[in-house]
């Protein structure tokens, strides 16, 4: 285990270094922006005196390194300050938005992984069948089509033409506000169907293709013959084979959730889902920098954390991995 501990420490140190780099890049970005943040916040009614006081309040008159250190401390403590245009603190807003984004991503990912695994494993097991070929071809097409266009199409057909499903939003105005209230509300599920399915249509392709090819590899291995020799039924053998074929999926899932934000931003805009991605785009269009900064930082943190978890999990579930 000594080797593992050293590996863990090294990976943690690496992750810490990357976080610091990203924070610094963000600091430079938001410092380099043209003009003065106060110019967005103040309007013509502000006197020069008031502007100066606001600058003092924000610490904009301090030397850059004081600002930099204060910024680092605030970011590490998740103290994101106050938005320009809303009353709650940025941290409170972020908490809300992260929850909403999870309310879309988590169900979609669960469905993708579970059904993708089943479909992929079955396709790999029945290699050469019509089912396998159809599954692979469909996955390849869905994998390469831009998911935001799929989203637009789904919206056009199911919301505007057929009027089966609501065209956007998460719950109607004045609907439930808490996590459990949301989960218990049929409105939430109705709003989730379209964006959720579009997300699944893209995310399910990875598990399908991965499980199929890893199943093909496992299928030829000796331990299956061993199990057959022991007299196990074909059904039990498929289960054993699938369990082994699942290994690469673990890393894939973590990496997948990391890059999920790419498509997530687009889907949240298309379906007006009040999540982290939509908040980022809106903050950027209104030049509300505290909010944009916090959203970007949180997305980077999630990406990094998931990559780290993927690496560690892989070692934990595959006894063949050593850290020496």
């Amino acid at each position: 285990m000594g080797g593992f501990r050293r590996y863990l420490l090294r990976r943690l140190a690496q992750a810490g270094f990357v976080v610091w780099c990203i924070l610094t890049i963000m600091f430079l970005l938001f410092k380099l922006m043209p003009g003065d943040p106060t110019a967005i916040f103040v309007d013509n009614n502000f006197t020069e005196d008031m502007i100066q006081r606001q600058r003092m309040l924000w610490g904009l008159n301090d030397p850059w390194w004081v600002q930099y250190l204060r910024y680092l401390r605030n970011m590490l403590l998740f103290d994101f300050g106050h938005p320009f245009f809303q009353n709650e603190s940025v941290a409170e807003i972020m908490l809300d938005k992260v929850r909403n984004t999870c309310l879309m991503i988590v169900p979609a990912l669960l469905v993708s992984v579970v059904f993708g695994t089943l479909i992929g494993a079955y396709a790999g097991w029945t290699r050469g069948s019509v089912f396998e070929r159809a599954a692979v071809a469909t996955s390849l097409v869905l994998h390469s089509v831009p998911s935001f266009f799929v989203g637009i199409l789904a919206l056009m057909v199911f919301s505007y033409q057929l009027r089966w499903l609501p065209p956007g939003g998460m719950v109607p105005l004045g609907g439930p506000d808490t996590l459990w209230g949301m989960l218990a509300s049929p409105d939430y599920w109705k709003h989730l169907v379209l964006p959720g399915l579009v997300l699944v249509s893209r995310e399910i392709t990875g598990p399908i293709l991965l499980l199929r090819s890893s199943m093909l590899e496992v299928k030829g291995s000796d331990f299956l013959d061993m199990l057959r020799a022991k007299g196990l039924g074909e059904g039990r053998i498929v289960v054993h084979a699938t369990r082994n074929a699942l290994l690469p999926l673990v890393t894939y899932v973590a990496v997948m959730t990391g890059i999920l934000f790419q498509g997530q931003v687009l889907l949240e805009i298309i379906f007006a889902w009040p999540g982290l991605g939509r908040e980022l785009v809106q903050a950027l269009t209104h030049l509300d920098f505290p909010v944009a900064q916090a959203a970007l930082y949180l997305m980077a943190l999630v990406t990094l954390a998931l990559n780290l978890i993927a690496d560690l999990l892989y070692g934990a579930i595959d006894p063949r991995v050593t850290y020496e």
Partner: protein
Amino acid sequence: MTGPRFLDVLGRNPSAAVGLALICGFVALAVAAPLIAPYGPFEVAFGPDRSVPRLAPPSARNWFGTTNQGMDVFSQLVWGSRVALTVGLLSALGSVVVGTLIGLVSGYFGGWIDDVLMRLTDVAFGIPFLPFALVVIAMAEPSLGLVILLVIFFLWRTTARVIRAQTLSLKERPFVWAARAAGAGHWAILFRHIAPNVLPLSFLYVAVGVQTGVMLEAALSFLGFGDPHAQSWGIMLNAAFRAGAMRTAWWWVLPPGVALSLFVMAIFMVGRAYEEILNPRLRAV
């Protein structure tokens, strides 16, 4: 990769043949855009009586109808192929060149150079691309050049890692020892002996680069962070989305989306066929 073998692969992969034909079609469209498109990318398609045909459905006059500002959708689509090809090619070439160079140097020299360059790729991998690109563009002026630079910044990391791994294994091969014994310097070994061996692999990432580049440009433009002066498919989708054309004017929404999907899919299919030529083991599976 000889001609007959290439045709052979195409014969066994009808999807790659279709993809190649589609790509040729898009290239022809882009090259001959001024001849094909009846109107300019931002030109209002005035009717015979100088009226502005707002949201006109497809007709013999405007094959794919018009936008809410009376612009010809078909013309915009044709001009959009130019933007797609430019963004795709430049971002792919840029990212492959940068990634290959970094991968080669990192893998060949090892030591602290490798450490520094690989930590750099770690940082690049930790940055969620689309959100990051949105922030950068919001800070600066949106322009096509900036979009291409951002895509390069996002894409080089994968190529760098793969090429580094390849270089690591190549530099221990006998032919490299032989070159060193014959007195070749580091750079000569790197660029005359190792680089030609990794280039086919780098080339695979050109396909990935074109695909990702076009997709990201479309995504950024769709979100309203694209170059407003370049009539791309993403910009068209953005305008259609904002005008609520999904409810009223399907002919404005479908063409750019379908063109984008076909283009990306075509590149993907051809890339897969090329991968198969490169790695014959894939053929068995």
